Structure formats: structure tokens, C-alpha cells
């Protein structure tokens, strides 16, 4: 009798001990990664980016974390380790993969987050929306939110931008967790989807941006569509009209309580206009997904596509009309234009940079191939949920619609990622929910995921040579914005330049590579830049930084020597004088 009573207690103790060890292993992984990242010396000098300069303890930490996760995922016959342990390991993964740059430097990566801070700052100053300024002021939702939060909290904007990737990925994961909760009952698959979502997330769209906010709200809408607003329907009867009508009428709501469905619908009706007001692309993705799921008979409120479409058209016709008048959206449409902008133009540069681009492609292709095989396996077993396939494939419809500055494939792969990960789970965890993976399978998965982590870190931080800024570069940017009188021009050699964060409207900002359309030869670009700078009656300042030079060289637009010649030629022109220099930057004043 005593032994019978003692058995659960002993089991419970063993559980607790195992959970403790797993948590401790997660902590050790975190400590290794944080310590290693903090020891990186800037600037990053490798063409391969951050991955090449992270000390080996970082990778040991990543390997240990993946091994720990799969021990926890394997768990025992009853399922994976306890929820707090799995959540803790996931949190460590987020910090290790998405917070690593914030551990290396206290300056946010890239140019765009600084620009977004500047837009929020400009909105706060103006206290109104002027759509004539630029495209951002035609979709101001996210910036209005950011301006309010920054002003009300008093938080340092740069710190907010620095940690935004960790915060945004945390929000995305919460939404993806809810979505997968509706799409699979297997707890191991649910956790593995979240893990793969992190490992496949090289797209680097989680910085302080409207798209990161839009993706979060998009995932929330998808959660509502596959959750309380889902519909059950019979097998698709083919295209005969009568059968189709009967099939459509035969749908039934998955959520039987009308009050709950109304509540869920109200949430979606709030989120649709907020997404539409915040970002250019996400509402189109939302419209595609709502329409696809509704037409497949898997969403109960059949008028949602109409509502999403009307809101989108109304936004384009009224608040965004100023921008659209000069930028017709179909101008950059077509498969050929999209392919050139998204693929051809991106595959250029130094050997190291090309390798990074190729690794990004490899990572994406590996996940899509796994997903395709997983879909076939699930279909053969009769367990394929068509909603997952539709959610994974429908973002592809965006690809030919717009070149989107060469970023459309990146966005497509991000929108599809949770569902690609879920389909890939059919290959990686082939059994049903009750099947515990063998130790060998768990070891293989840990190794596979470690390799995916290496690819993700390499792809994600592959531009660190030019998108991780030094303190000297930040000093130079602050100096040029201080020296330049209002209305004058500031010309930086190239993107990315960490400027415009607190004087967005004060100066005219241009980059020389934009002016010269990436032809940096001194004979062509020199006169264009000089004439443009000298034209402004308020004067101009030219900014040359280590990072902008690295950007131009790495992407194959110029060589180190060519860039130096170009700068020297400009410095010798009439009215051009050096007014500031430090280890990583030079500023020239151009007198008109």
C-alpha cells in the first residue's frame, strides 16, 4: 500500500529533477551565447557577417540548446517535458538567435529602424498626418502607435529599436502557438513548429517596423480564422454548379456558440482596418488568405473577403490616394519584373556575400522541400489539413503582384513560414502524437536543427559588415545632422546609414548610390553627386562611412580602391572641404 502511494510521488520527483536539468542546460546555453556575443569586437570585418566572428562558445551554446530542446521534446511516453520548460527553452532560443546583435552592440542594426523612429518623432512634433511627405505618412498606423508609446513611456527610442526583434518574435511566436494549437493536437509537433519557426526566420523583418507589427496582427487574424471562425465542410464535390451550391450550404460553424463567433468576428473587424492603416503589403496578404480559406469552405463568415477588400480599397482611395497618385501599384507588377528584382539583382557581390545569399536560399528551399514531402506523407496517411497547405501556398500569389523593392520573396517566405514548419513536421516527427521519437531520431533532429541555426544566423546577420554600426559612425551621423542647416542636403555614400531618427523633416536626405543608380565609377557618379550637392542654396554635406563603403564593395557596386578614388575626386572639387573625421567616417561640407 505504501509503495503504491509512493510511486506517483517518486515519478513526480523524477519529473521535477529532469525538468530542472533541462532548464539548467538552457541557462548554460544562454550564458555561453551571451558571453560569446558580448566579446565580439566591432566593426565586423568578414564578408560572411556576424556568424564568422562569433566565438566558438556561442555555437557550443546553440548546439547545447538544440540538444536540450530535443531531449525535452522527446520527453517520455506521456509527451514532451512540462510546458514551463519548453517555454523557457523557446525563450532562450529567441534571445540567442534574435537578440544576439543586441548583445554585440547597443546600436540597432540597419538603417530602417532609425528612419522609423524619425517618422514617429516627426508625427509627434507635427501632431497631424501630412500625406504629402512620403509613403509612410499614407500608412501611418504603426507610427502613430510608436509615437504614442515612446512619448508616454519616456523610453529611450534607440533601446526600444535595439530590442524590438526579440519583442516582435515573442509576439509572433505567441500567435503561431495559438494557430498550431488549432491545426494539430500533437503537443510535440506544436513545440517543434515554434522551434522551426525560429530556425527558419532568417528574413530579418522583426525589427522596429510596420511590417513586424502587421505580421503579428496577420497571425492573430489567421488564429481567429482557423479557431472560432472556422467552418466544417464536406469533401469538395467538384465544379458542378448544383453540387457546389449544396456543398457551400452544407458548411457548419466549428464553434457552435453564436456569441463566441460574434466576438471573434468583432476582433477581426477591428484588426483588418488597423492592419490596412499600418502597412502597404500585409492587407493584400490578409485579403488573399481570407478569400482562399473562405472559398475552400473553411471559414464561417462568408462576407469577410468582401469586408477586407472594401476596407483595403477605401484606404487606397482616400488616406493613401496622395501616394498612389504618383506611384501606380501595378507599375512594378509581372513575373519577370518580380524575378529580376527579387532574385537576379540580389545575386551579386563579393564571394562571401554571394555565399550568404546562397545560404539564405538553401535554408528556405530545405524547409519548403521538407514541407512538400511532409504534405505528401500526411496526404497518404489521410491526415492532411488543406488549410495548412492553403496558408503555406497562398503567399506565393503575392510574388508576381509587385516587385516590392526586391523584397517580395522574403515577405512571401515569412508569411508562409509557420505553415511550412507545420508541414515539415510530418517528415521530422512522422509518428502520431503518442509516438516518442527514438534517441537516435532525437539526436538527428538536434543536429539538423543546429545546422539550420547556423544557416539562420549566417543568413540573418550576413550583412553585419555594413549594417552593424560602430560608435564612431554614430558620432559622425549625429555630427552631420548637427552641422547641416535646416533645408540643406545630406548625402551619404550608400544605404544603410543610421540617420533621420530625430530630424526626419529637417534635411533633404539622399544616398549617392541611389543618385548614380549604383554606378560608382568616379567619371559617372562624381559629377552627378557634386552637381546635386552644389545645387542646394542651403548647402550640402557629404558623409562617407566605413559601413557605407563596405555596403558598396560587398554588393559589388564598387571596389575599395574605386570608392577611395571617388571620395578623393569629390574632396578636391571647388567648395568642398573636410569638416569632420574619425576612425570610421569623414564629413565634407559643400558650399553652393
Amino acid at each position, binding site marked *: 500500500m505504501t509503495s503504491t502511494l509512493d510511486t506517483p510521488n517518486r515519478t513526480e520527483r523524477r519529473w521535477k529533477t529532469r525538468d530542472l536539468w533541462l532548464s539548467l542546460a538552457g541557462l548554460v546555453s544562454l550564458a555561453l551565447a551571451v558571453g560569446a556575443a558580448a566579446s565580439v569586437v566591432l566593426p565586423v570585418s568578414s564578408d560572411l557577417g556576424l556568424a564568422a566572428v562569433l566565438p566558438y562558445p556561442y555555437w557550443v551554446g546553440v548546439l547545447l540548446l538544440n540538444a536540450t530542446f530535443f531531449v525535452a521534446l522527446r520527453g517520455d511516453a506521456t509527451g514532451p517535458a512540462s510546458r514551463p520548460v519548453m517555454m523557457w527553452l523557446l525563450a532562450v532560443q529567441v534571445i540567442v538567435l534574435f537578440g544576439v546583435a543586441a548583445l554585440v552592440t547597443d546600436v540597432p542594426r540597419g538603417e530602417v529602424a532609425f528612419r522609423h523612429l524619425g517618422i514617429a518623432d516627426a508625427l509627434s512634433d507635427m*501632431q497631424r498626418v501630412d500625406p504629402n511627405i512620403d509613403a509612410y505618412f499614407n500608412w501611418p498606423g504603426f507610427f*502613430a502607435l510608436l509615437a504614442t508609446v515612446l512619448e508616454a513611456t519616456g523610453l529611450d527610442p534607440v533601446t526600444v529599436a535595439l530590442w524590438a526583434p526579440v519583442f516582435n518574435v515573442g509576439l509572433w511566436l*505567441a500567435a503561431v502557438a495559438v494557430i498550431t*494549437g488549432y491545426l494539430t493536437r500533437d503537443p510535440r509537433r506544436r513545440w517543434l513548429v515554434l522551434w522551426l519557426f525560429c530556425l527558419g526566420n532568417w528574413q530579418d523583418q522583426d525589427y522596429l517596423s510596420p511590417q513586424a507589427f502587421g505580421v503579428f*496582427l496577420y497571425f492573430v487574424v489567421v488564429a481567429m480564422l482557423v479557431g472560432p471562425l472556422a467552418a466544417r465542410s464536406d469533401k469538395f464535390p467538384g465544379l458542378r454548379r448544383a453540387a457546389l451550391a449544396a456543398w457551400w450550404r452544407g458548411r457548419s460553424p466549428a464553434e457552435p456558440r453564436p*456569441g463566441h463567433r460574434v466576438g471573434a468576428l468583432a476582433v477581426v473587424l477591428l484588426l483588418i482596418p488597423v492592419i490596412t492603416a499600418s502597412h502597404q503589403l500585409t492587407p493584400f496578404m490578409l485579403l488573399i488568405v481570407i478569400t482562399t480559406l473562405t472559398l475552400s469552405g473553411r471559414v464561417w463568415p462568408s462576407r469577410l473577403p468582401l469586408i477586407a477588400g472594401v476596407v483595403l480599397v477605401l484606404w487606397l482611395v482616400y488616406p493613401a490616394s496622395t501616394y498612389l497618385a504618383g506611384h501606380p501599384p501595378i507599375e512594378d507588377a509581372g513575373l519577370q519584373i518580380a524575378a529580376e528584382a527579387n532574385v537576379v539583382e540580389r545575386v551579386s557581390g563579393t564571394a562571401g556575400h554571394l555565399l550568404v545569399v546562397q545560404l539564405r536560399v538553401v535554408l528556405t528551399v530545405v524547409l519548403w522541400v521538407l514541407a512538400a514531402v511532409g504534405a505528401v506523407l500526411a496526404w497518404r496517411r489521410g491526415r492532411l489539413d488543406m488549410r495548412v497547405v492553403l496558408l503555406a501556398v497562398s503567399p506565393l500569389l503575392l510574388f508576381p503582384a509587385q516587385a516590392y523593392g526586391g523584397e517580395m520573396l522574403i515577405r512571401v517566405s515569412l508569411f508562409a513560414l509557420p505553415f511550412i514548419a507545420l508541414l515539415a513536421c510530418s517528415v521530422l516527427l512522422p509518428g502520431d502524437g503518442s509516438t516518442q521519437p527514438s534517441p537516435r531520431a532525437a539526436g538527428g533532429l538536434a543536429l539538423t536543427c543546429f545546422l539550420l541555426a547556423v544557416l539562420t544566423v549566417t543568413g540573418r546577420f550576413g550583412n553585419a559588415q555594413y549594417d552593424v554600426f560602430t560608435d564612431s559612425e554614430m558620432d559622425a551621423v549625429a555630427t552631420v545632422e548637427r552641422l547641416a542647416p535646416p533645408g540643406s542636403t545630406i548625402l551619404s555614400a550608400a544605404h544603410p546609414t543610421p540617420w533621420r531618427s530625430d530630424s526626419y523633416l529637417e534635411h533633404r536626405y539622399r544616398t549617392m548610390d541611389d543618385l548614380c543608380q549604383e554606378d560608382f565609377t568616379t567619371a559617372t557618379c562624381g559629377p552627378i553627386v557634386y552637381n546635386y550637392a552644389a545645387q542646394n542654396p542651403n548647402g550640402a554635406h557629404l558623409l562617407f562611412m566605413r559601413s557605407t563603403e563596405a555596403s558598396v564593395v560587398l554588393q559589388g557596386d564598387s571596389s575599395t580602391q574605386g570608392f577611395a578614388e571617388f571620395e578623393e575626386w569629390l574632396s578636391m572639387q571647388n567648395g568642398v572641404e573636410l569638416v569632420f573625421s574619425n576612425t570610421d567616417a569623414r564629413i565634407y561640407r559643400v558650399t553652393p
Partner: protein
Amino acid sequence: MRSVSRPTAAVGLAAVALALVTLLGLPTPLQAVAVTVVLVLLPGHALARLTQVTDLPLAALLVPALGLAALTAVSTTMFYLAVWSWQACVLTMSLITVLACVARVRQEAKWQLS
């Protein structure tokens, strides 16, 4: 007389109290926490409760989603109307929270009757 459930009353009262405190101003880290609660979490929680969602993970997700979405809608509208200030946003969001609590009280009363 309608009885108000403790969670509903707590959310409503907290929204009013925190709005006043944040408008008066707190030291930076406390101000950040209080503002996050009054601008995002309380309205998000109050609105999520109105939806009657019973699934706990979805209800937890709706708190930040609805809070951020509502704040975006409020602040964007204020910018378009040229009446924006962060103080006005704090007041409006706390008003939304209180109104959502009132609606919740009516919901609860209806359930008690049925």
C-alpha cells in the same frame, strides 16, 4: 441592483487609477510599466473578456493584440483629426477600458438572468 464581478471592477478601477498616475508622471521605469498597462494591457484585457473567448491561449493572445490594435486605431484617428497628444491617448484608452467593463457587467447580468 446589478452585481459587478471582482475582476471587472478591478480592471475598470485600475484603468482610472493608472491613467491618473501616468498623467501626473512617474519615474521612467515605473512610468513605462504603468503606461504599458494602461495603454495596452488593460484595454486589451477588457476587450478580450467581451469576446467571450474561453480558450486560454487565444484569450492571452488577444490581450496584446486587441490592446495594440485599439491604441493604433485611437492614436491614428487623433493624428488625422490633429488632436493627438499622448495624454489624450491615455484618457481615451482608459475610457475604452471602463466602457468595455460596463459592457461586461451588462453581459454578466444577462447571463445571470438566463
